[in-house]
């Protein structure tokens, strides 16, 4: 059917049935009138339409199962559990992520500093590092070395 105002051929009608099925509401509006006109006058078009209808009904014989109660409970539990709430707040909301990263970095620095030795053996002497760890009393090292 080259022009929308041209009568629809049986071949056009078959092709449209294959594309859009037997529900006329799924068909493009601009071809419905021509299809109706053909259906009214062509027994072959009627047979093709009936065949398409039967196919729709055959397909409807295979309904999918509904979600199980267990699945619905699992989905609901995604928000019901406290732990899920934390996951929601942290994972689903990017605004928290920089804060978490900063906290993790600060924690790492603190643990690293706490694990530092307070003194280091060097030859017969020993460096006292508490001044270093304390943040500036470098004289402590020298004195310890002189002893």
């Amino acid at each position, binding site marked *: 059917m080259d022009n929308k105002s041209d009568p629809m051929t049986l071949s056009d009608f078959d*092709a449209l*049935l*294959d*594309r*859009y*099925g037997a529900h006329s509401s*799924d068909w493009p509006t601009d071809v419905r009138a021509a299809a109706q006109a053909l259906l009214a006058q062509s027994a072959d078009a009627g047979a093709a339409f*009936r*065949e*398409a*209808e*039967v*196919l*729709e*009904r*055959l*397909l409807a*014989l*295979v*309904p*999918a*199962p*509904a*979600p*199980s109660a*267990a*699945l*619905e409970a*699992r*989905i*609901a539990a*995604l*928000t*019901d559990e406290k732990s899920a*709430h934390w996951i*929601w*707040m942290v*994972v*689903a*909301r*990017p605004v928290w992520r920089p804060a978490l990263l900063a906290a993790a970095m600060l924690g790492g620095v603190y643990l690293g500093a706490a694990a530092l030795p307070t003194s280091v053996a060097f030859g017969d002497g020993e460096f006292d590092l508490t001044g270093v760890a304390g943040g500036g009393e470098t004289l402590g090292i020298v004195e310890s070395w002189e002893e």
Partner: protein
Amino acid sequence: MAPTVASAALWMDLGEQTPDGCVDDSADQSDDVLVERIADGDQRAWREITRRHLSAIVGYAWHMLRDRAEAEDVAQETMVRLMRKAETWEPGGAKIRTWLYRVAINQCIDRQRARRTTSLEVLAEQTDPQTGGARVARDHALRRAVRGAVDALPERQKQALALVHYQGFSQQEAATALDISVEAVESLLARARRTLKTQLKDLANDLLEEW
């Protein structure tokens, strides 16, 4: 005073009305609005979006995988991803429904690649021990034949058929979900229907008289 996000998650479960007397209207809201509320931890919005879409996603996955447990796994993972996506969701863009199906479609494809369903497994699942009477036996035979014909379709045709026929997608929506053109969807559907008509011709002829 407006409730905080944390308290919202608590009071949303207490009744139909919010603390400031507002009636919950989740059922009337668009998917976009619900997802915004989900990002703020709103459980009612989560339940509503689940009510709207979970069953259909299970249905789509079942039509593609023919395994209920796997279909439910796909649906659960799809919903988990929606929850994670909620905060960054941009309203007015893609439809939630289309996005959900894209996630489900990709999971089904991954699972189909990961397994090789043997015809024996399919037959075992299709066999139903409850065969009381000729009518019931005939219905089982019909379903088995239809499922066999649909399962034998090429994957892309089956996807298009599952979305448009079983999930009620428009061809435009199916095109978006499958990331192909509308014309390509129409072509897939046309080829699927032609094949099915040929495969099921004998059954259809028998049923034409009855229906």
